[in-house]
């Protein structure tokens, strides 16, 4: 197809990063360096808090990819957190596998079980899909409560041999001059940081790929995406399986750090799905920045308001409702909409190479 009749042939190219996002990348690299070195000068409480922040942020990224982009509103992601935790316990306690190898093992098992789970829940749409995922998660909980070698309904603990067998514990002990429990926390902290960074990089690369383009289209208008050649079912299935694998690995890591597991805690809809939905919604659903902001707000609220007991949950709920009513695109959406900011450059900008004052 030819361009306008009189204008010379223009050439077009794609640009993704802009000045803000380049600055953000430099700042993120610096922040990452500080976070890696943090155990050298931070107290054990802060390290433990940050482990919690990191895995909630990573879980929220996964849920956001699933619900915010692929339109799969799952309230059953605790199925994969619990599954990951239990696979870690089974592999280390019964199989004698090193915990560090058990984490990716949990991811593989979660992905493998996500396929048959998808066969069931993908037959359902909208609210029925949400309820279906929850029911499946309950089935997982009831099944694991029957497994006697893993403690049945009351659960079980990792033996000190297992928790101390994470590679590098001895090295951390001498490096930071700390006892074994503190060294375990530092190892978990680094693992959590690594998994968070891996999750962010993964989600970012997906959104930058052709599948990410399709996910954006599905998020905005599913039926129109199909008539433009997007294979919706396939992309949704890929998103479901990939997030299940990530969630499973996070679950393994969470329970490696907790060192104690029970079906009720591991498959808790409140801890692993309700809070995660809260984080994503207040931060900004359907953006990669949203869950990052949301997780920090959630952590601060938990840190400073948890002493108020029931009031804390009431406040959490109120904030969630207010954001949904007055800032449906979340707190990040408010900021990004006003200033046109992006920290993770997923936008594809069209640049015209020809100085004719016709630049977009």
């Amino acid at each position, binding site marked *: *197809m*030819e*361009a*306008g009749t009189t*204008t010379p042939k*223009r*050439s*077009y*190219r*794609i640009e993704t990063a802009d000045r803000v996002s380049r600055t953000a990348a430099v700042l993120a690299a610096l922040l990452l360096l500080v976070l890696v070195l943090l155990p050298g000068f931070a107290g054990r409480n802060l390290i433990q808090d940050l482990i919690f922040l990191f895995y909630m942020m990573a879980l929220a990224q996964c849920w956001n990819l699933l619900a915010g982009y692929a339109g799969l509103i799952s309230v059953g992601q605790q199925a994969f957190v619990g599954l990951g935790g239990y696979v870690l316990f089974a592999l280390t306690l019964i199989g004698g596998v090193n915990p560090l190898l058990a984490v990716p093992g949990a991811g593989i098992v979660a992905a493998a079980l996500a396929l048959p789970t998808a066969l069931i829940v993908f037959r359902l749409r909208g609210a029925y899909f949400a309820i279906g995922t929850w029911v499946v998660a309950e089935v997982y909980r009831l099944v694991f409560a029957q497994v006697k070698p893993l403690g049945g309904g009351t659960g079980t603990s990792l033996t000190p041999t297992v928790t101390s067998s994470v590679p590098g514990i001895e090295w951390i002990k001498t490096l930071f001059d700390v006892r074994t429990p503190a060294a375990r926390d530092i190892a978990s902290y680094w693992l959590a940081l690594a998994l968070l960074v891996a999750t962010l990089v993964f989600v970012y690369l997906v959104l930058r790929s*052709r599948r990410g*383009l*399709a996910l*954006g*289209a599905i*998020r*905005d*208008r599913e*039926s*129109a*995406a*199909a*008539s*433009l*050649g*997007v*294979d*919706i079912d396939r992309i949704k299935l890929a998103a479901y399986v990939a997030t299940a694998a990530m969630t499973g690995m996070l679950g393994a890591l969470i329970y490696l750090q907790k060192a104690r597991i029970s079906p009720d805690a591991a498959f808790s809809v409140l801890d692993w799905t309700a809070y995660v939905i809260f984080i994503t919604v207040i931060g900004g659903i*359907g953006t990669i920045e949203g869950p990052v902001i949301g997780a920090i707000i959630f952590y601060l609220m938990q840190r400073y308001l948890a002493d108020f007991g029931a009031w804390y949950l009431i406040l959490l709920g109120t904030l969630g409702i207010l954001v949904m009513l007055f800032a449906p695109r979340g707190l990040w959406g408010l900021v990004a909409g006003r200033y046109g900011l992006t920290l993770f450059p997923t*936008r*594809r*900008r*069209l640049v*015209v190479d020809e100085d004719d004052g*016709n630049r*977009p």
Partner: protein
Amino acid sequence: MLLDIAGLRKSFGAIVVADDFDLTIAPSEAVGIIGPNGAGKTTLFNLIAGGLSPSAGRIRFDGRDLAGVPPQGRCRAGIGRTHQIPQPFENLTVFENLLVGAVHGRGKSEREATQSCGEILDQLGLIKRANTLAGALTLLERKRLEMARALASGPRLLLLDEIAGGLTEGECAELVTTIRDIRKSGVAILWIEHVVHALLAVIDRLVVLNFGRKIAEGAPKEVMARSDVRQIYIGIEA
């Protein structure tokens, strides 16, 4: 024949919305469809583009039977469509909207698709809005985006669903020029429209639908002169 529809029938329970419908379109031909509201026009598009499956009959595109081919497969085969109510991806930019069609409908990489998407945006007068979020567009721009996005998927047949509705006279005239250009580039057009004068400025052949049945087909002027067609259009078209 590019498009070959024979004996097409679609019913929802007792309501028949397409009844024994035949239509053929040759490559780079432009065909218009008119008919009162509820005549089954949009249903016909959904049957061709794959949103609905027919109760009976068959649709062939470029010799291939489309039965069981999902919407994305029909897009990849070369059927592009616009929607009566524009359906932009509102949180993607205008350019990204086109990329979806070029990458997924045509199997190109983003880099390969950039040049042709830029040219389409230029042709449709959207180049200055390329990096604007589609949700911020005006109605005319949204209608243009519908066409631009469908063109980006590289169609050989373009289905236009009331693309001129709701536009001013001037906007409508611009749109007619654009559609003529698209046609000249070798894309066949099947166009449903209430704004008959816009339609007549482009098409070679006119089909009149009423209650899911084809009641007239032929050269536009002759069809519009028929008394039964005029009767149906009393109150709709002066």
